């Protein structure tokens, strides 16, 4: 189980993540939602150990991750929001490098990489430089790199970005499959429709604070809202969307 306890992080004195606490359990997909700038990616980076929090604690399987960060990293897979990769490598070279850094046995790594490249329809372009890959192809490389070592904790930050319909459907099923096999999956996305289909439990963040942490079913009945979009609008959208769109149209018309 992944557990965050009173996590606090601020940049230049301004809180980005403010007293965030929630749990993500094995066997279920936890959706992590929030508007732009609410602190989702900061939380994800804290969980991966990429940035340090000012206070609070992140525990995995009951132990603070900082106690043995190296072993924790070996059990975690992470798909970041932006597909930043080493563009001078080919897709195959990149995945091979990751397998070596993760110390996977050579033959096993080779089989997994080959299989993942085929299943993600990247096999024909495996020798091409990543700099020429489309956003969707880069996203597939990130996904392959994040799961090839069979991690116990899967962190997905906007994993559907740039994927075509077919690949998105595969990924959606894959997320469910990973959870069904007992992995802890934390999934951040703006695609509420997908979150509603995939996640059993959601955490909604607004201005760095958790404003909802419950199952979707329970939230629906609690807030008398038929969809996740309605729940999200009530909790995290402060704007009058109609008025803003009119403002924008007026502005460019003038």
């Amino acid at each position, binding site marked *: 189980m992944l557990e965050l306890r009173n996590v606090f992080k601020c940049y230049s004195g301004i809180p980005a993540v403010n007293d965030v606490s929630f749990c993500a359990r094995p066997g279920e997909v936890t959706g992590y939602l929030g508007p*732009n700038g609410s602190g989702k990616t900061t939380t994800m980076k804290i969980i991966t150990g990429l940035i340090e929090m000012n206070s609070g604690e992140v525990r995995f399987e009951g132990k603070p991750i900082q106690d043995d960060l190296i072993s924790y990293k070996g059990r975690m897979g992470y798909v970041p929001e932006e597909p930043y990769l080493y563009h*001078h490598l080919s897709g195959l070279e990149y995945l091979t490098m990751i397998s070596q850094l993760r110390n996977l046995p050579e033959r096993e790594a080779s089989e997994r990489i080959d299989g993942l490249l085929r299943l993600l329809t990247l096999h024909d372009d495996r020798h*091409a430089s990543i700099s020429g890959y489309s956003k969707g192809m880069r996203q597939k490389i990130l996904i392959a790199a994040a799961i090839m070592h069979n991690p116990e904790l899967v962190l997905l930050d906007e994993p559907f970005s740039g994927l075509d319909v077919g690949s998105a459907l595969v990924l959606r099923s894959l997320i469910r499959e990973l959870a069904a096999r007992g992995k802890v999956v934390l999934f951040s996305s703006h695609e509420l429709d997908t979150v509603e289909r995939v996640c059993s439990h959601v955490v909604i963040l607004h201005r760095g604070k958790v404003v909802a942490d419950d199952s979707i079913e329970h939230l629906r009945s609690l807030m008398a809202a038929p969809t996740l979009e309605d729940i999200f609008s009530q909790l995290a959208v402060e704007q009058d969307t109609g008025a803003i769109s009119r403002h924008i149209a007026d502005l460019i018309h003038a």
Partner: protein
Amino acid sequence: MPKLREFFPLEFRILYRQFLSRVIDLELLSVHADVPRFLGQFASILVLISLSRAFGLLYAADGLAPGAYVSFAWRGQQDLISSTMLLVGLVTIASWDSTFPDRRDVMVLSPLPIAPRTILAAKIVASASILGLAVLTLNFAAGIAWPLVIGSHHGSSLGFLQALAAYWLTILVASVFLYCTVVAIQGLTSLLLPRGLVLVCSACFQMAAVCLFLAVYFLQPTITSVEMAGTASAWLNWSPPLWFFAVFNQLNGSLPPEFHWMAQRAWFGVAIAMSGAIAGLVLCYVRTMRKMLEQPDLVSGGHSLRWTPRLGSPLQSAVVLFSYRSILRSRQHRLAVAAYAAVILLIALPWLQIELSSPRTLPVTSDFLVSTFVIVSLTVLCLRGVFSLPISLTANWVLRTTQLCPTEKYVAATRLTLLLLGVAPAWLVVALLSIRLRPWHEVAVHLLILAFVGWLLAEVALINFYKVPFTCSYLPGKVHIQVMFWCAMFLLAAFAITSAEVELPALDSGVRSLVIVAVLAACGLALWMLNNHRAKSAQLYFEELPPEVITSLGIGSLPQQTPSTTFL
């Protein structure tokens, strides 16, 4: 000022500023880099060279023996023109992509109402500004001192002014010639070849050009009299710095009739280079920009080998292969390595020439030992320097999230990289150069000593280096690069000469050779242990990008509200 603004429209000025900042690849520099100061440090190296040359010329001219003036003047002219052309060549190659439109320009600028000629003009002016600044910095003192020297021997009161005009015009024309030649070749290849092949050819051409410029600069003989023309006719025929030496004398009114054809060749060359560059640029902007939009993004990687060599542990394999591929595939890294490789080749070539031309075996000399020590030390120094040019700071998260080994394992991987990509090739070059040397046991002992020296230098390079190669930079602008440059040159020379002096007398004594080897092995082992011990308590460092702070435009709120700061 209003007229100037009318002459250079707003879009030109905006593009010029944009392209000017892109002549230097900012991705190569640290996020904490002080870029203006960094450039200032490079400029200060050039300024120091210019000043020392100016004072040297004035001092040498003062004590000149009668009758030695022509030889002195010609030597000085050739040196100044050659070094300026070398600088222009290196800057042009370093800013290779800055004159032609790249894919980013095409994607961003094509949808905007901007004429291709405005983009072309802004690019040319930006490149010319950087080149002009570099040339001016290198010549600002020597470019006045030299005409003073020449003018004083001219015999007329206008001598100084004529020499001054001749000097700066020659420098200008020589720079234009070299820049236009490179641009013309670039234009021609991108017009005639498919895009994928252009990229491959460009990489080869850049490396070849750096080697060629350095080779011409170091190997070209100095012409000090008309009589020498007969012995160096091949150089006179094919070396542009010598043509422009003739141009200077032509403009200064001091050209011997025997060299008129060289000046003519220079002017002819300038005309051809300029025509080629203009044609190449215009055609590229008309055709290539459209071609770029039509070409597919994905270029097949060809028939790459699936086999990846095992080099020690998986982590060591990953780091060595990552480093090797970074050097091979990144233009800036490749060029930096090419520059060092050219210097090493220039040291090695004369020895190779001696070996090939000598009918007998040769003894191990002090000069040979110095050259080999310079080759090995320069290789380690080069590789350590190139490690500090990051390949992609934004992708460092990959290495951080997969950091499953303690720091000492990463230090071991970096050590292997230094030994395999630096020491081993340099050692092999020296071994090849030693084939004709005798006696055998002296050669063998020297090669053994050199291997230990290489290992020792690799350990020195690893002190406090708790990083993966190509993930962090050396804080340009914060480190005094101009001081480090001169210190490194001085230390390198002192180290090579001292090592040769110590080794040569010991080569014919088995015991003394053994003592040297034992001392080197003990020092290497001590440093290895020290590095490992310190790495155990050190943390692997990755350069961080600043916190991802974004400033919202406030369009989600009422228009009157002020912007607020939010976080991703």
